């Protein structure tokens, strides 16, 4: 059973990344999505405060009208 298949819609990742400026923070946030094997992620929120960036990333696993794996019965 895949846990990602059980995600109703999306996975959000919230964290704080140490970085030198907003641009680097943005790049690191996108890179984080890739390093976590989420592929391309959306950055929902990012705020650089001089020390680092607080970010909220989102990866949609099941979008509306797609095939929802969580709706199918689990293989026995």
């Amino acid at each position, binding site marked *: 059973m895949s846990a990602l298949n059980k995600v*109703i819609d999306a996975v959000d990742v919230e964290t704080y990344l140490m970085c030198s400026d907003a641009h680097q923070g943005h790049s690191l946030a996108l890179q984080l999505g890739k390093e976590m094997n989420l592929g391309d992620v*959306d950055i*929902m*929120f990012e705020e650089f405060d001089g020390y680092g960036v607080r970010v*909220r990333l989102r990866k949609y696993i099941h*979008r*509306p*009208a797609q095939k*929802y794996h969580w*709706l199918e019965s689990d293989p026995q």
Partner: protein
Amino acid sequence: MKKILCVPFDPVHDVGIKLIKNSLAERGHCTELLPPDLSMEEIVKKAAATQYDYILVSRTLGYGVAELLARFNDLLDAAGVRESTKVVLGGKPITPELAAELGFDKGFGEHSSIDEVIAYIEDRPLNGTADNHKRTKPDIASHYFYSFRHKRIGELLDTIAEKTLHWAEGKSSSGIERCKIQEELSAVSDPSQKKRLTDRYNSLCDPVIADANSKKIFPKGVRYITDDEMENVRLLIREKQPLRQQNIRHHSRQPLIFKFLGSGCPTMDIVHAKICERYGVNGFLIVNPSWEARYEGLLHGLLTHENDGTITSEENIRLMRDCLNPSTLLTVRAHRGLNTPEMIYLAAKAGADMTKINLVYGSLGAGTDPERLTVDGLYAMKIAAEHNMAFDIPGNDELSGVPAAKSLAGLLINVMLGKKLGAKAILKPLFCYGPDIVLHGQMKQNFVDYNAAKIRALRSIVDAPIWPGEPIAFMTQTEERVQSANATSYHAALAASTGVDAITIASTDEAFSRGPITIASRIDSIRAVTDAFRFMGDASFQPTAAADNFTDDFVRKIQSALETVAAYANLPEAINAGALGSKEDGAYPGKFGKGTVRNSEQQIPNHK
């Protein structure tokens, strides 16, 4: 009767164990509570001296506590206590798994109720299952009389409504004709009659809708829901039940809570709705795709859509209604497009409880020609009255820049028109930080006074239900999750404080426009509002003196706007002239359906 020893194994956090001890004693059990400062050895000695049926131990976790609890269990074992006594562990971070791992017979944690503990001790099933949380369906409009307290405003509204009803007499549109065809289709069973009516219906639709309904050539991103998908969603609803049903409202005088559904896919919406029901949401509003309002005619069938907005076909509405708890309210919006009468008729037929009509906002902020929407809207109000569906009137024209007083004047015109046609309206002033407010600084001091004044002003004018929308805190929420939840909860607390009937709340990803709303974000804002309602209870906000000035100003400006509207021959003329929102305000009369209103004797042209 059981003999129970209660052990606060924690010097500070012993409130829970005291509450449980009292509840057990009230039920006739013999309980004994130890002081919190005994050593482990003293507790074991006490436990061994008397034969208890249960020893209840409460403890929060911390560094080394797990080892301590395991050792305590070993000592009880060594003293022979466990041969005849069950030892139970409880505390905020305790889970049944952890308790078992540490050698306890049972564990109760943060989400356990006292009833669950008592049921376990009494060795009986828990009564507090979902069945015990049966809810009754509320009727928002039932206890209002729609009497106008402000005499002059009542007179002006009467004049405007009479003029508008007189103007609309004998007028029709393809939207009204399609609604009549739907009514006829419901009444006939003969296939040839059905075909004749269906052909006539399609001839009154835009080609994109007619092609979808007759040739199954759907707009991009639309498809049928498959039989498998249908079966699986019904199975899911049957098999899964809410665990520990929650209430958002701390008491029944607090407003009902509504949420939008409009992911595009009814299946996704249903799953979101079922989870929201568990957290205490009282009702939902189906939000349809914006293009559905612009085309003549509606799509039919069980349809899913991969973009924003769930298609409001009769079949989709019925599916959603069937899957919701019977006590959950369902509203279908029909306020702004070319299918208003038909949509309300089909929504009623499919079991929806309420609908949404606003002749002014639909014309100024949503793009429909004022004449067309007035003719259609009045017919729609009659349908709503016939089916006993209240309709809410969203004041979303404020978001285009229309000053709040003009928006509120528009709401009141709809209330009077509804009253004359036998339909019950629900006022929906925005709790928002709209463009006019940003420009003129009414909320420079706080977000309380101006919003509270809207409610006070409307209450001083008419006895009608009020449901701030939509969602509350519009334009105060950002993409930051905590800020968004806070903004929603503060506005919800203010709404509760003003005693309104209902509110619509956003999710914490409402301001994120690049993707669908997620269930986790819905839960975020529900939890925030639940806490806010608990925090407020029966208390209320105390607006400053500025709220009194805003209230007086609203009433004066509403009256002034209505004096202006009353001077025109009818409502559409007043809207076109900018009396309820001008181009300078940022409001433009809509063009969809322009020139399509006909006198009844004139033939409605085919759209093909």
